[in-house]
């Protein structure tokens, strides 16, 4: 039995943040119905999201929206709104990621929805909450990374701001929304109450940086400084970083410098017996030169038996060949209603020893209209 079996989620959200949350709920067993605009649907189906089109829609859309149904309806029009309200009356959860004010204008604010369904979990993601200076700004991942100073943590000192190369803030906000929804569903099982759950991408980006921001707050406001080379964390000393070898790269997380000097047979490192934080650039420079002299496997062969925390640096092609990856069974095949199949990843959570898989691919726009209208007597 999946934990969310029998729960119905009505999802108005688009792009990544909200839909990544409803994907998790779907994988945990909930029935998720995407509410989409007729003709165009979730903007993620078509707009600027990846160069790869699969079965007419972007690869990104297929990734985020498998295991869901699609109900295409214009709820800005009276008849459509009526149908939606009937559906909401039957739902356990509804969620959206419109900017503040949009649902109010449509007539689906939390207060209005409570009248239809007093026990609903109403969940919303915004870019910046309801702050007057910010609420009209686009809640877009790169803009949030840039605003919250996340871009000064990755890359080397002279690189300028470097974005994390995927939409991490969207995914964090989605993960936090999922937590709020699940916690509220739990409260409902005990107290039979609904809930309003709100998450902003701004809050999620702060939470992600809780260690570095707390450090900044408490060390007199000193800005993080990345190392000149081989940076992997602005606040950590040498050897923390990725180093080039003769045939690839090596990640090195820790190790006392004199021990490393001996294991790696690198005499220049002996000049740094205390591993001072202030000398981390110099230590990394010595290490970087030395590690280039042999291949990755050679270094791993010395360091791993000595219990030094290190690893090879892989790309997808190399990773997917590794036994350590294969045993995870992390790739699954899903099939759309029209028979189109594609490979994608699965839910990262295991419960009672079982992985969650589902063979249901993403829905074509409005593919479930007929069933839903009939089933819910809309």
């Amino acid at each position, binding site marked *: 039995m999946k934990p969310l079996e029998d729960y119905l989620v009505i999802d108005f959200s688009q792009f990544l943040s909200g839909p990544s949350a409803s994907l998790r709920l779907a994988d945990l067993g909930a029935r998720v119905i995407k509410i989409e605009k007729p003709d165009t649907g979730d903007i993620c189906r078509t707009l*600027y999201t990846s160069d790869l089109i699969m079965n007419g829609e972007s690869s990104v859309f297929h990734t985020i929206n498998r295991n869901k149904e699609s109900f295409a309806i214009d709820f800005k029009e009276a008849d459509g709104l009526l149908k939606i309200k009937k559906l909401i009356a039957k739902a356990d959860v509804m969620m959206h990621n419109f900017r503040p004010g949009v649902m109010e204008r449509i007539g689906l604010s939390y207060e209005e929805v409570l009248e239809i369904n007093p026990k609903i979990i109403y969940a919303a993601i915004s870019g910046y909450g309801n702050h007057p200076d910010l609420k009209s700004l686009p809640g877009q991942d790169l803009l949030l990374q840039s605003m919250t100073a996340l871009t000064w943590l990755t890359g080397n000192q002279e690189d300028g701001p470097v974005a994390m190369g995927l939409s991490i803030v969207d995914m964090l906000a989605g993960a936090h929304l999922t937590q709020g929804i699940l916690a509220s569903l739990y409260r409902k099982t005990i107290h039979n109450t609904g809930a309003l759950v709100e998450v902003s991408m701004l809050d999620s980006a702060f939470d992600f940086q809780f260690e570095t*921001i707390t450090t900044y707050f408490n060390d007199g406001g000193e800005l993080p400084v990345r190392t000149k080379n081989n940076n992997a964390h602005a606040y950590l000393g040498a050897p923390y970083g990725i180093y080039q070898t003769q045939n690839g790269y090596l990640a090195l997380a820790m190790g006392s410098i004199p021990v490393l000097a001996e294991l790696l047979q690198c005499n220049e490192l002996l000049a740094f017996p205390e591993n001072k934080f202030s000398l981390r650039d110099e230590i990394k420079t010595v290490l970087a030169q030395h590690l280039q002299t042999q291949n990755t496997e050679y270094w791993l062969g010395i360091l791993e038996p000595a219990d030094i925390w290190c690893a090879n640096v892989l790309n997808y092609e190399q990773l997917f060949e590794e036994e350590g990856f294969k045993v995870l069974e992390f790739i699954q095949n899903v099939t759309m209603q029209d028979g189109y199949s594609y490979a994608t990843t699965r839910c990262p959570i295991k419960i009672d020893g079982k992985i969650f898989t589902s063979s249901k691919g993403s829905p074509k726009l409005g593919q479930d209209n007929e069933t839903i209208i009939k089933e819910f007597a809309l």
Partner: protein
Amino acid sequence: MKPLEGLVVLEFCQFLAGPSAGLKLADLGARVIKIERPVKGEACRQLSIKDLFVDDSSLLFHTINRNKESFAADLKNSDDLALVKKLIGKADIMTHNFRPGVMEKIGLAFDDVKTINSKIIYGVVTGYGEKGPWAGKPGQDLLVQSLSGLTWLSGKKSQPPVPFGLAVADLMCGNHFTQGILAALLKRAKTGKGVFVEVSLLESILDVQFEIITTYLNNEKKLPERGAIQGSAHTLLSAPYGIYKTQQGYIALAMGDLQHIGKIIGVDLDQFQDKALWFSSRDTIRQILVDQLLSNTADNWIELLNKNGIWCGKVMNYNELGNQKFVRDLQLKQTVRNTDNIALTTTRSPIQLDGKLLLHSKAAPKVGEDNQKIHQSFLND
């Protein structure tokens, strides 16, 4: 009332992934008790950044472990172990991140614990799952990032692999762990039985890459390629997506209509009418933008672009961010205090419930600070 009020969590986890989940559960209302070695306590207490300590424990530990209690017990001592087992009998959830085999040796594996408490939710965090050749490897963030392919997504094409500058595998795994535990509570509510929850750093960091991995798998295994121009920000996205240097400061440009953007900032992009070129020629296009955007300041560009509805924003650092009025208005900081009345400023839960922030002024505990209280509430019968 907070949703998890009345629930008791025993946290055997150390460092970041597991304890970050404990913090989320605490902020949602659970009573989270860290089970720690006497005297020295959890290993993270001694792990500092910039040598910052508060009350003998690192600031890092304080950040991750506010709003929790501490019960000091030596699991290798039979009297202490008996107390811990009694405590488990009263708990709803327990979590650990020991390497495979450790809890079995102590006698606190899920099968053992079920005989004490048939309704327990038992959560485990590993580095790479419990089987296969990597199961015994150190579950450390940078190593997991490096093995997972993530390091080929940031920075530009000519650069070596660039890791994310934060413990992203730990933190996402902590988020997934929280989700798994909460889902387990729902399952338990239906079945009345204990639930076993597992997450791993590797699976979590692969989940973060779900869009890029899916694209790779369905694109004739073409590896993701970073843009060639400084400021490239996403392997899947076309121009103008990225960060740009200006005469003064940096700006970020998200997805948008290139013809429109070209007209606004004064460059001729007529030869890129075909949208397919926005991806295939993204380096050429971004170089044109790089050259033009250097000719004015970030503030001026943002004013101009915003006025025309283009998705853009300023790149700030912690000083600039900290000075923003919204940081205070939105209460993005909170102050916590320990039992000695030492205060420190940190962040808060990102989840709002019923229109309220989940705030709590309790700082991280000292090792064993709550032994007496816990004895009284759970162990005196």
